[in-house]
């Protein structure tokens, strides 16, 4: 509920939304906390907290490496959930979406997983390898706990399938920008913008566009073309990955990058009428 409310508020304020995506524990838990604080302070409207997984098949090299680093530090799924609790206790009240590959969820037990997420203060769940056909059990458990199970659509998703996804969607629809995996990319391709309109025509649910968003310009373009906001992940991880010895020293750059992104989201919304 909190997610959709927040996104509708932003829409009313004519602001594009920004949801940074971080893998918790990369390279250390302490850094993740500082990173989240930085993001919250520099323009993030929602937060996507990833649970590191050994085989993140929907992720590209940047996030795959992030998972490997976190796991080699001994990060466990329950630490990620505990971290959300701590963020809440520190007063960070942005809507939080937890991303976990399905084996983590399945292993945890879907019902218990949702209960624990709710208790920690999370608002939604993304399972990158759980298409709508396989989602029944989790969807039910999530609903029971007032959590949004976020579904994705991709450039390869057919019209009829978009409808099928929309029938189950809540919170927002995650528009996968590219055919591929997460990771920074050069340009936003026309098919991405077409996909946004194709979904837009069919739903009033908020749309966040993710995968490959790596610049303020990307963000602006996506929002200008109908997205309610963007998800930015690898592009942020890429910044601190370049200085893993002292990732804290990169927070300033991340702060300004995120501010730019947020500004671009706002700008994109302004440009929208012109298009």
């Amino acid at each position, binding site marked *: 509920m909190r997610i959709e409310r927040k996104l509708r508020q932003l829409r009313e304020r004519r602001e594009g939304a920004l949801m940074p995506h971080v893998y918790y524990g990369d390279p250390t838990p302490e850094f993740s906390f500082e990173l989240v604080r930085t993001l919250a302070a520099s323009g993030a409207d929602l937060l996507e907290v990833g649970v590191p997984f050994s*085989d993140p098949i*929907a992720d590209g090299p940047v996030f795959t490496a992030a998972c490997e680093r976190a796991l080699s530090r001994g990060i466990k799924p329950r630490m990620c959930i505990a971290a959300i609790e701590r963020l809440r206790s520190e007063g960070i009240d942005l809507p939080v979406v937890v991303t976990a590959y399905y*084996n983590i969820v399945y292993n945890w037990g879907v019902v218990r997983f949702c209960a624990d997420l709710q208790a920690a203060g999370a608002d939604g769940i993304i399972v990158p390898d759980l298409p709508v056909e396989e989602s029944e059990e989790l969807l039910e458990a999530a609903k029971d706990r007032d959590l949004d199970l976020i579904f994705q659509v*991709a450039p*390869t998703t057919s019209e009829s*399938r978009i409808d099928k996804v929309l029938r189950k969607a809540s919170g927002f629809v995650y528009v996968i920008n590219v055919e*591929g*995996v997460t990771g920074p990319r050069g340009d936003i391709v026309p098919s991405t913008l077409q996909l946004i309109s194709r979904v837009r025509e069919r739903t009033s649910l908020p749309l966040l566009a993710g995968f490959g968003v790596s610049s303020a310009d990307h963000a602006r373009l996506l929002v200008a073309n109908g997205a309610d906001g963007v998800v930015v992940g690898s592009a942020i991880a890429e910044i601190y990955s370049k200085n893993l010895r002292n990732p804290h020293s990169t927070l300033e750059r991340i702060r300004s990058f995120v501010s730019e992104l947020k500004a671009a989201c706002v700008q994109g919304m302004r440009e929208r009428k012109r298009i």
Partner: protein
Amino acid sequence: MRGRYGRFGGRYVSEVLIHVLEELEEAFERIYPTPEFQQEFHHLLRTYAGRPTPLYYARRLSERTGLKIYLKREDLVTGGSHKLNNSLGQALLAKRMGKRRIITETAAGQHGLSAAMAGNVVGLEVEIFMGVKDMERQASNVKRMRLLGAKVTPVTTGTGVLKDAVSDTLREWAKTSRTTHYLMGSAVGPAPFPEIVATFQSVIGEELRRQILEFEGRLPDAIVACGSGGSNAIGAFRPFLSDSDVRLYFIEGGGESLDADNSAAAFVLGRPGVLHGALMQIMQDEDGQIKPSKTRAAGLNYPGRGPEISYLCETGRVKPGYAFDREVFEAVKTTAECEGLIPALETAHAIAYVLNHPEEFDRGELVVINFSGRGDKDLDAIMRYFYED
């Protein structure tokens, strides 16, 4: 439900891949039964792959064990293993789907090799993802693939083994699925792969059934196959699933020992979970992180068991077993000396199980071992084991 074997199977992938999996399922169901496809597939199986493969009565192994042992000679398939049955089928399918490129992963190199062969015969570009560690261990197969003109791409993620190569191939496929077919190498992965692979490999069991009836006038008492994903086992077992008198054994890699991280025995050490698009028996830690498997047989070095094998072992129709590395090497030697055949390390798991589990077999029983591949690729490892330790 389609794509499920009991609770196992399914299609746990990114939305990006759903489209191509649906396309593949539709194409398989439409194209596979056509006489044109059947004719071309079986013609290639016969004239290119070398099918039917013989069923060989192993006299001296039989004498040694007091059993009546037959070997189903998949080592005689072009390239040296059963893998080509599936690769030819999928390559033909991909061609008819209008794809122009095949990607796949390989561990022992046998599947990669078969994919490269099938790609060349059918006329498709081939790229093969292979863990850096496996590239070292199976260097000669890397050479073969390259000589065939295939691009071999080293995988450095994870621990550089099969599991990581599958992940990277899935990632590559997500980027290129419109033009590219992922030629899945075993009976794993999201639906419809396990069913497609099992269907193409069933030729093993169909021949086996005809042959044993011709030679012995009856069905075997037991069929024993090695496996990880389980494609050779499922291929051999399928036509016998409803013959409840035929015992079926699935032998996985015991590795060095069952403790710590020295094994690939997922039916002993694992539990159900989701990996690479399917719910199946998996080696994983308490949190659901996938555990790296370990065995000297690269082709068994995978932490998951295909959904159908997972299901059949859960229901008890198939009995899982394992063989330790040292038993496997001894079985290679025994087979070489008794029958003049050098089995692949993978295959030798099945043989080792029969040699070392007299309690499972009554005297004189008719036992068929699926001889899934030849050991040329493992020659150096075998020689090192016997002559340098």
